[in-house]
């Protein structure tokens, strides 16, 4: 008689996705914490001084951007050396980690002839990339 655990083995693509997701999340969280620590400890100069935040975060995002001259879209990359902006790097890694995980599955599905799921993975990648590009949200 087979062990129940042997009967509940998960498909290889699911295991690969889990491994990649695990690493993506870990890297994202570490970068997020390190950059935030540098920010609050004052190790990196801020784009917006922390003391001004209480008078600024009460405004809608449009007004906040006007008052602070903060970037939209991918403009933050040019200011990533600033303490407050650097926090976005970890956030971007977390929000983008699924893209690499999904791309890693495409060859597995394709080689098995499961073209529908290869296409679904690519469609999800396309959706995340469109959102990240800022084309729709007008962030560029």
């Amino acid at each position, binding site marked *: 008689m087979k062990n*129940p*655990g042997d*009967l*509940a083995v*998960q*498909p290889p693509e*699911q*295991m690969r*996705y*889990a*491994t990649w*997701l*695990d690493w*993506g*999340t870990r890297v*994202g*969280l570490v970068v*997020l*914490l390190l950059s*935030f620590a540098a*920010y*609050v400890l004052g190790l990196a100069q801020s784009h917006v001084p*922390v003391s001004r*935040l*209480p008078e600024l*975060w*009460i*405004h*809608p*995002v449009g007004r906040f*951007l006007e008052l602070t001259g*903060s*970037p*939209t879209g*991918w403009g933050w990359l040019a200011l990533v050396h600033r303490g*407050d902006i650097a*926090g*976005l790097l970890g*956030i*971007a890694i*977390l*929000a983008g*980690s*699924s893209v690499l995980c999904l791309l890693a599955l495409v060859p597995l599905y394709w080689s098995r002839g499961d073209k*529908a*799921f290869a296409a*679904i993975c690519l*469609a*999800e990648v396309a*959706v*995340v990339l*469109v*959102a*990240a590009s*800022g084309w*729709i*949200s*007008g*962030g*560029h």
Partner: protein
Amino acid sequence: MKAARHALLLIAGLLLVACAHAADAAATSSAVPWWVWPLGLFIACFLMGIVAVPAGIGGGTLFVPIVGSFFPFHLDFVRGAGLLVALASALSAGPMLLRSGLGSLRLALPLAVLASASSIGGALLGLAMPAQLVQMLLGAVVLGIVVLMFTSKKSEFPQVDQPDAVAQALALHGVFLDGASQRAVRWQVHRSVPGLLVFLAIGVLAGMFGIGAGWANVPALNLLMGAPLKVAAGTSSVVLSLVDSSAAWVYINKGAVLPMIAVPSVVGMMLGARIGARLLNVLKGSVIRRLVIAVLLFAGTRALLKGLGVWP
């Protein structure tokens, strides 16, 4: 057991007191030193994380109504942070759920594609609407969640005699090891097309309000599509990790993600959730659920009244 229950009552009480105190202080936010807010946010999220797990509700669902109603941050930034809270929680839980088979990637992917696309629309719509209207709609949605939590039934192992054509074509089935019975449970789903349409609507809500949509995902997967309850909860988390990624990018691109709000929230919620997971077997789920319903009822009413201008 009794001590743990008392501790929980204390936490829920603290959460309510903290909220009420924050609401008072929020009116004079500029006079308060800047570091009080991220610290308060961290503590509030830590408490929310503790109660969220045993109550069977995503931390993101608690975050937006509570922080949006009782902290001075504009709702644009609260929703951006809320999405990141839900995203970080879903990403952290995802690998374990997938390895154990409680989360099914095969079931999650088709649903996530539609929900991700619609969440972008929801996020754009939410950021374009006046804050008062969003606040009002948020209050209505949160009160709807309260009703859903009160009335929704659950089916541990729904009966699915025959998968529908779409489920059959996409092979939407799987197997997981049920820890309680120590047996391998095979499952399949039906009503895939209505399920896909429901996830399209769920994506809009997730993007618009920045709330994790586990409260809607689980009933849709379990009661509508017939996935076993544990698979529904695990797969919901995988779907969330994809849907919230797309919506989060809209908020990042619009400049609506402030690390000073997002990071303490994410860290507090994740630490609290670890404690909550450990208390899972000690605390009585139904008691915590009732406490969370009370907190949500309070926060939902506050959001609705704030949106209507009755309780500014």
